[in-house]
C-alpha cells in the first residue's frame, strides 16, 4: 500500500451515483478518479489506470462486486490493490463477510457526498498504520 492515496478506480453501474461520487472524491478529496460502469470494464481499465484503491459496488448486473473482486485478484498487477465495497444496508456480519473476502472495509450506500472522501481517507489510514 503506498503511503498516500491519490488514484481511485470506482466501479458502479448507476450513472447518478457515478457522477455524485466522482464529484465528491475529486472536489473534496482531490483524488484522481476513473469510473467503470461494470465489472468487465474494470478488468480492462484497472491494469492501465493502476489505481491505489478500488471502490466496488456490490450489486451490479452481469458481474457482481464479489465476482469482480475475484477476477481482479487474478490479474498480476492487481493482486494486492486495496478494495472497498459499497453497498446498501450493511449488517455487521456482512461487513465481516466482505472483509473475509479480502476487502479493506465497506462503505454504506447512500453515502454523504460531503464526507465520502473523509470516510475513504480514514479507512485508508487505519489500514496503512
Amino acid at each position, binding site marked *: 500500500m503506498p503511503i498516500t492515496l491519490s488514484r481511485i478506480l470506482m466501479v458502479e453501474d448507476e450513472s447518478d451515483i457515478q457522477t455524485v461520487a466522482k464529484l465528491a472524491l475529486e472536489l*473534496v478529496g482531490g483524488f484522481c478518479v476513473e469510473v467503470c460502469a461494470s465489472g468487465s470494464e474494470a478488468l480492462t481499465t484497472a491494469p492501465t489506470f493502476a489505481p491505489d484503491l478500488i471502490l466496488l459496488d456490490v450489486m451490479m448486473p452481469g458481474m457482481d462486486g464479489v465476482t469482480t473482486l475475484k477476477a481482479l485478484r487474478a490479474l498480476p498487477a492487481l493482486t494486492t490493490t486495496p478494495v472497498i465495497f459499497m453497498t*446498501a444496508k450493511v449488517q455487521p456480519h456482512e461487513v465481516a463477510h466482505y472483509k473475509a473476502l479480502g476487502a479493506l472495509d465497506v462503505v454504506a450506500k447512500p453515502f454523504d457526498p460531503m464526507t465520502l472522501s473523509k470516510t475513504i481517507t480514514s479507512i485508508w489510514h487505519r489500514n496503512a498504520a
Partner: protein
Amino acid sequence: MPPEARLALLQDQLNLLRQQYARRLPDRLEDIVTSWQALRNDGSPVALLPGLHRAVHSLAGSGTTFGFTAMSETARTLEHFLHSIIERGGALSAEHEAQITVFIARLCESSQTYEPHAAQLAFASEAVVAAVSEPATQSQIFIVAAPDAWVTDLANQLSYFGYSSRLFAGLDEAHVASQAAIPLALLIDHAHLAADATSTAMIAALRQRQAFPIPIIFIADHGDFASRLAAAQSGGRAYFIKPLDIGAVIDKLDVLISHHAPVPYRILIVDDDEILTNYFSQTLIQAGMTTCVVNDPLTVTVPLSEFRPDVILMDVYMPGCTGLELATVIRQQETYVGTPILFLSAQASMENQLMAIGLGADDFLQKPIAPDYLISWVASRAQRSRTLRFLMAHDSLTGVFKRSKLTEQLVLAVAHATRSGSPLTLAMLDIDHFKTVNVTYGHLAGDRAIKRLARLLQQQLPAPNVIGRYGGEEFVVLLPDTPLKPAIDLLEEISATFAQIRHPIDHGDFSVSVSCGLASFPEHATPTSLNHAADQALHAAKRAGRNCVRALSGLT
C-alpha cells in the same frame, strides 16, 4: 482552491444534479408502472421480473442521495420483496401481485416528497473539516461547587445509587474535563457562580458538547424567583435548595438520564407465505422492532412462550389450522389473554371480522398493506400492550414487581433451576421498626424510605435478578445462578449501604436499617418451601436484633 471553496463548488454541482434527477424521476417511475402492467399481462412473468427488480434497485440506491428518502425506502422494501420472489423461482400468487401493486402506488406517491437530508442541505464545512470523533460519554456526574462537607456528602450519597461523580471548584475546570469525557449530568452550585456573561457562556458551551444537551441541575441557597429564573435561563432542568433532598435529586437524575435504551417491541408473525412474512418481518425490523416468524401455525407454541410477543400478527387462511382457530387456542391460555392479535386477511367480510373479534382478535388489517400502515398499526398496539402489561405487573409506588407477578417468577425460576441444576437464592427484606418511622416522621417519609430501598435494590441487583414488593415494607429478591454464600455477601453490602442513606425530613433527616433472610435451592426445592424458609430466616434476623442478614441452610 481552499477547502471551503471546493466544498461550496461541490454543493453547487450537487444541487444541479439533484434538479436533473428530479426532472427525470417521473419518467423512470412511469417505466416501472408500465413494465409492471406488461408483466401482469404477460404469461411468463419469471423472465420479466429481474428487469423490474433492476429498475427498482436503481431507484432505491439513488433516491436518498438526491433527497427522495421516503421513495428510496419504499423502493428498498419492494426490491427485497421482488428479490425473494425471484429467489423462489418467480411464481406470483394473487396476494403477491396485489402487494406489489400497492408498493408501486406508494412509490409514485412518495416520489412527491422531497427532503434533502441535513448533511447535504446545510453547507456544513465546519462539521466536515472538524469531524473528529467525539469523546466517549462517561458515566460520571460533574459537580461544580466550592469544596465543602455537604459536597463530599452529596458525592457519597450519589454513589450509593450508582452515580459516580467528580468535583470541580470552577466551571472552567469542568469545561476542560468535558473535552475528554462528556459528563452524564452537571450539578452546579448556583451561589458559587459569578452572575456574569462568562459563566453563562461557559454553561452554554458545556451543555452543547453533544447532540443531546447535557442535563444541568442547579443547587441554590434560596428559592427566590430571580435566582430560579436565572437558573432556568442558563438551561437548568431542575432547581434544588439546600439542604438537599438527596432522594429528590436521585429521582430527577433517573428521569433526566435515561439509563435504558427502549426495548424493541417483539412481534410474532404467523403466516404460511414465506415471501409475505419476509416482507412484514423486514419492514418491522427496519422500524426498530424484533420479530419472530412462524410459517407453520401448528408450531406456534414454543415461540409463543419463549419469544413472549407484545403483538401477534396472524394470517386468517393457513393450511393445517385457520388463524381463527389458532387465536382461540392462544386465548384459552391465561398468560396470553392480554396479548393483542392482529389479523391479516385479503378478503375480510364483515361477518368473518365479527366472528374473529368474538374469538379474541383485536383488529383486522387488509392485505395488501403498505409498509408505513403496517408499522403504525403494529407499533400502536404494541405500545398499549406493553403499558398495560407493565401496570398489571408492577407496584405503583416503587415500580418493582407486585406480589402476584413475583410468585409467578419464583415458579419459573425454580422450574429453571430444577431443569438446569443451577443455583437459586431467595432473599426477603424488611425495613426495621417501620411502624415507628411512620408514626415519628409521617407516612410520606415512610413511603420515601420504601422507594429508596426499591431503587437501591434495582441498582445493585439488575436483571436477571428479580425484585418484588410483598406489600408494606417487605421486599423479595430472586437471585438466579447465585448460591447462598455470594448472595449473603451481596445482601450484607446492600443492607450496610441502605443504613447509611439519610432520608430527609422537614428539619433534619433519619436513617433506617433492614433485616434480611435468605434461603437457597436445592436445599429448599419448591417455591413454597423456599418462600417459607426465607421467611423463617427473616424472623431469625429480626430476633437476632435486626439490621442483619440471616440464612436458613439445610432441610427444615
